[in-house]
C-alpha cells in the first residue's frame, strides 16, 4: 500500500525529534513499517490510529523503550539507530503514559524529583529546595491548589497526571509525549489539561498527543499523523483535515473487492435487543439480528462496541433494556448461561479471553462443549481428538495435530482454534470481535470466507470491527456506535466509507442534536 502523496511540510525550524524510515517487528509481525515522524518546537502533534495501528510502539521507540529494527532517529543534532532511555532523558524527551508511573506512598514533591532530587552535599536531600521547585513547577502549570506534601496515592487521576507532567518538566523536557491523557478524565479536568498543554506549547515544548477523541485533536493539534497497520498514512496540518477525512485515513478507504461474500439467505430474527444499557458504558442500544445475516458493528475505539458484545454474552450483564432470543425475553447473567442459550463470543483479545495457551488444540477446542465428548464425568479422548481434527480440517488450521500446544501456533491459527472452540457449541448467534486483528492476510481471507459460509448455513453473526473495508465488505447491514450509543443502521447498499465514516465520527449524532 502506498501512502497518499503529501505536500512537503517545509518548516524553517529544526525538529526536536525526527524519525526516518523506522521499522519494528515483534515475533515476526511488523508493527511499524518505514514510518517517518517529527516533532517541532512549540507544536502539538497529534498521533492517531486504531488499536494495533502502531501508535504505542512508535512512542516507545521515541522514548527509548523499544529499539527499532531499521531507520534512524534524530534527537536535536544526534542521529541514532536506537534511543536508549538515557538518550531520551538527555535529549529532553519525557513521556506521560496512560498508566501513570508514580509512587503512591511518596509525596508530590518526592515524585516530581525522584531520581534527580536536589542535594546538599554528602547526598543529603535538600527538602526545602525540592518543595520550593515542585511548587514553582506546579504553579507554572496553573495548579496552585495542588499540595506538594500530599501523598500521590490520595490524589485524583487528573492531579496525578499534573504531577507526572511536572516531573517531566523538572527534567527540562523539550518533547512531551502524552499517551491518551484524557482517557480517564472528566470533562472539567479535560479542559484544564488542554490549558496546560497550550501553556507548554507556548513555552516551545513539542508535544506528541495520542488520543482517540477527535474533537480534542481539532481543538489542540497543529498537525496530525495517522498510522494504520503500522504504516504511515499521512501527516497533515490540522486545517487540511476534517473529522470524516481523519476517520477515513484511520480505517482505510480502499474496499478490497476480494471479500468472499456469498449471496446471503437472510431469514427470521433470532436476537432482538431493545434499549440495552450497561452502566455508563453504553445505553439505548436497539437492533435485530437475523439468521443468515452478518451484522457489522463499526465505531471508534471506546464507542462501546465491545461492551455491547460483553453484555450480550453475559460477562457484564445489562443494567437496563431487554434481550429477546427467538421471541423469548431472556436475562443473560453469565457466559455459561449465554453459551447454553446458543450464543458464542470470539473475543477481541485472543490471549486474554480466548485461549488457554499451555493446553493442546484438542483441549481448547472442546473447552466450551466438554459435555459432547464426555460420558458422565469422563472425557472420551478419542472423540475429543477426532472432533479437534475435524475442526482443524474444517477451518484449515495449520498445526501438527490435535495434541499440539496452542501457544506454539501463529496468530491466525490461534484465532481459528478459538473459532473452532465456539463452533463446537453449535451456536445460533456468533459474535466476533475484531475477527481478523493481528493476523496475516492469507488467514484473514480464510476467516472471511468461513464467516460467509457459516452465515449461508443459517448462523446469525454479529461482527465488530475497526477495519472499515472489513465492515463494508462482509456486512449485510452496518450498525455504527458513537460515544456509547447506536447512531446509525445502514443497509449494505447504502454503506460506503463516507456514510459509515460520518456516523463513526459522530456526524449523525450531531445532526440529530
Amino acid at each position, binding site marked *: 500500500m502506498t501512502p497518499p502523496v503529501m505536500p512537503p511540510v517545509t518548516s524553517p525550524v529544526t525538529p526536536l525529534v525526527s524519525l526516518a524510515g523506522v521499522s519494528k517487528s515483534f515475533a515476526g509481525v511488523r508493527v511499524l513499517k518505514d514510518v517517518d515522524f517529527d516533532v517541532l518546537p512549540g507544536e502539538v502533534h497529534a498521533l492517531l490510529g486504531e488499536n494495533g495501528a502502531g501508535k504505542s510502539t512508535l512512542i516507545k521507540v521515541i522514548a527509548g523503550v523499544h529499539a527499532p529494527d531499521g531507520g534512524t532517529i534524530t534527537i536535536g543534532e544526534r542521529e541514532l539507530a536506537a534511543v536508549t532511555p538515557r538518550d531520551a532523558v538527555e535529549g529532553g524527551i519525557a513521556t506521560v503514559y496512560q498508566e501513570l508511573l508514580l509512587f503512591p506512598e511518596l509525596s508530590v514533591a518526592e515524585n516530581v524529583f525522584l531520581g534527580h532530587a536536589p542535594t546538599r552535599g554528602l547526598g543529603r536531600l535538600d527538602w526545602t529546595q525540592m518543595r520550593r521547585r515542585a511548587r514553582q513547577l506546579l504553579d507554572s502549570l496553573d495548579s496552585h491548589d495542588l499540595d506538594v506534601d500530599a501523598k500521590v496515592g490520595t490524589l485524583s487521576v487528573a492531579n496525578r497526571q499534573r504531577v507526572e507532567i511536572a516531573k517531566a518538566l523538572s527534567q527540562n523536557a523539550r518533547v512531551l509525549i502524552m499517551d491518551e491523557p484524557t482517557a480517564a478524565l472528566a470533562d472539567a479536568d479535560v479542559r484544564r489539561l488542554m490549558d496546560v498543554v497550550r501553556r507548554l506549547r507556548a513555552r516551545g515544548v513539542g508535544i506528541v498527543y495520542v488520543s482517540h477523541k477527535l474533537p480534542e485533536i481539532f481543538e489542540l493539534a497543529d498537525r496530525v499523523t495517522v498510522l494504520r497497520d503500522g504504516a504511515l498514512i499521512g501527516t497533515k496540518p490540522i486545517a487540511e483535515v476534517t473529522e470524516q477525512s481523519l476517520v477515513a485515513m484511520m480505517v482505510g478507504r480502499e474496499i478490497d473487492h476480494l471479500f468472499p461474500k456469498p449471496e446471503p439467505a437472510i431469514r427470521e430474527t433470532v436476537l432482538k435487543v431493545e434499549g440495552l444499557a450497561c452502566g455508563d458504558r453504553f445505553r439505548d442500544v436497539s437492533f435485530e439480528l437475523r439468521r443468515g445475516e452478518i451484522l457489522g458493528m463499526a465505531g471508534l475505539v471506546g464507542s462501546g462496541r465491545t461492551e455491547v458484545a460483553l453484555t450480550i454474552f453475559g460477562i457484564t450483564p445489562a443494567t437496563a433494556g431487554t434481550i429477546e432470543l427467538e421471541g423469548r425475553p431472556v436475562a443473560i447473567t453469565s457466559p455459561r448461561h449465554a453459551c447454553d442459550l446458543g450464543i458464542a463470543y470470539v473475543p477481541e483479545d485472543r490471549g486474554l*479471553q480466548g485461549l488457554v495457551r*499451555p*493446553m493442546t488444540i484438542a483441549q481448547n477446542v472442546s*473447552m466450551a462443549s466438554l459435555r459432547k465428548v464426555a460420558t458422565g464425568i469422563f472425557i472420551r479422548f478419542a472423540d475429543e481428538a477426532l*472432533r479437534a481434527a*475435524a475442526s482443524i*480440517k474444517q477451518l484449515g488450521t495449520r498445526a501438527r495435530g490435535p495434541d499440539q500446544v496452542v501457544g506454539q501456533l501463529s496468530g491466525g491459527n490461534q484465532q481459528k482454534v478459538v473459532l473452532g472452540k465456539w463452533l463446537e457449541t453449535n451456536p445460533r448467534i456468533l459474535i466476533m470481535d475484531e475477527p481478523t486483528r493481528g493476523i496475516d492476510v492469507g488467514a484473514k481471507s480464510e476467516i472471511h470466507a468461513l464467516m460467509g459460509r457459516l452465515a449461508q448455513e443459517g448462523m446469525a453473526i454479529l461482527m465488530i470491527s475497526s477495519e472499515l473495508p472489513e465492515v463494508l465488505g462482509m456486512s449485510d447491514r452496518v450498525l455504527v456506535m458513537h460515544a456509547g450509543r447506536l447512531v446509525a443502521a445502514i443497509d449494505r447498499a447504502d454503506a460506503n466509507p463516507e456514510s459509515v465514516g460520518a456516523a463513526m465520527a459522530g456526524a449523525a449524532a450531531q445532526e440529530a442534536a
Partner: protein
Amino acid sequence: MAAPDLHAAPDFHPKRSLAARIVSAYGQEIVIAAAIVALFVVVSTINPRFLGTNNLNTIIAGNAYIAVAAIGMSMVIITGQIDVSVGALIGVLATISGNLAVSGAPVWIAWIAPVFIGAAISGVTGALVAYGRLPSIVVTLGMLSILKGGLVSVTGGAWINHLPPAFQLAQQRWLGLPVPIWFMVALTLLAFLWMRNTAFGRSLYAIGGNPEAARAAGIPVERRIVQTFMIHGAFAGIATMIFATQLRVIQSTVPPNLELTIITASVIGGVSILGGTGTVIGSTLAAILFAAIGSAMIFVNVSAYWLRAVIGFLILVTVLVDMARRNREFRQ
C-alpha cells in the same frame, strides 16, 4: 452450522510416536523417576543396606502422608493458587483425631473426622480466595497463623498419649504392604485419572492456564476454586489419618516446615507454580525422592542438615527448567 463431520478422516496423522508424546507430556515425571532409580543404584553400591526392606518401608511408608497431602496441594497449585497453611492444618487435624481416639470415640470416627473438618476449613479458605478476591498467599498466611496460634493456645503443645492400639492405622499391613503405601499409591492413581479424564480435572487446568478464557468458556471459576480447596482439605485430612497413626504419641503442635515440604513436592514434581500444568504422579514421585535423599544422606554419612539445602537446590533448578521450557514452548 452442521457439526463437523466426525467420519471425515483427518488429512494428517500424528507424526510423533506414542513414546515421543509420552515423553513430551510427562517429561518431569520421567526425570524424577529416573532420579529415584539413579539414587537407589548409587547409594546401594556404596551401602547395600540402603535397599533393605526396613529402610524402604521407612522411606516410603514414613513419608506417604507428604505425598498424599501433595496431591491436594498440586490441585490447588494447578488452578493457580497456593496454600501455605496446610502444615498447620495437619497439625490441628492430628490433634483433633488423637483427642477423639483417646476420648473413646470409635476409631473410624477418629480417622474420618479430619477428612471432613479439613475440607470444611479449606473450604472457608477457598471461599475467601474465590469470592473475596483475595490472593491465596495472603489468605493462607492468615489461616496459618490462626491455626497455629489456636492450636498452641488450646493445647499448650501437650503430647497425646495412650492412643488405643486399634487407632494405629499406619502401622497396619494389608497384603504384606504397609497401609500408608496403599493409600499413597491408590490416591495418586485415582487423583491422576480424575485430573486427566474428567471435565472437573480439565477445568482446573483451564482455570490455572487462563482464568478469563475459562470463565468465557462457561466454567464456573469461583465455584471450582472453592471445590478444589475443599478437596485439598480432604487430602490433608487423609494425610493426617496416616500421619497421626504412625507413632504411639501425637504432639499437639505444627510439624515444622511441613507446608514447605508439601509445596516443594508439588513443584519439583512438575506442577508449575504459575498454574495450568503438572500431574499428581510427579508430586508423589518427588515426595519419595526427598525421603530417599534424606535417607541416602544418612547411609553415606552426610549430615542431615544438608537435606534442606539439597532440596532447596532442586527447587531452584526445577523452577528454572520450568521457565526455560515455557519460554521455548511459547516462542512463536
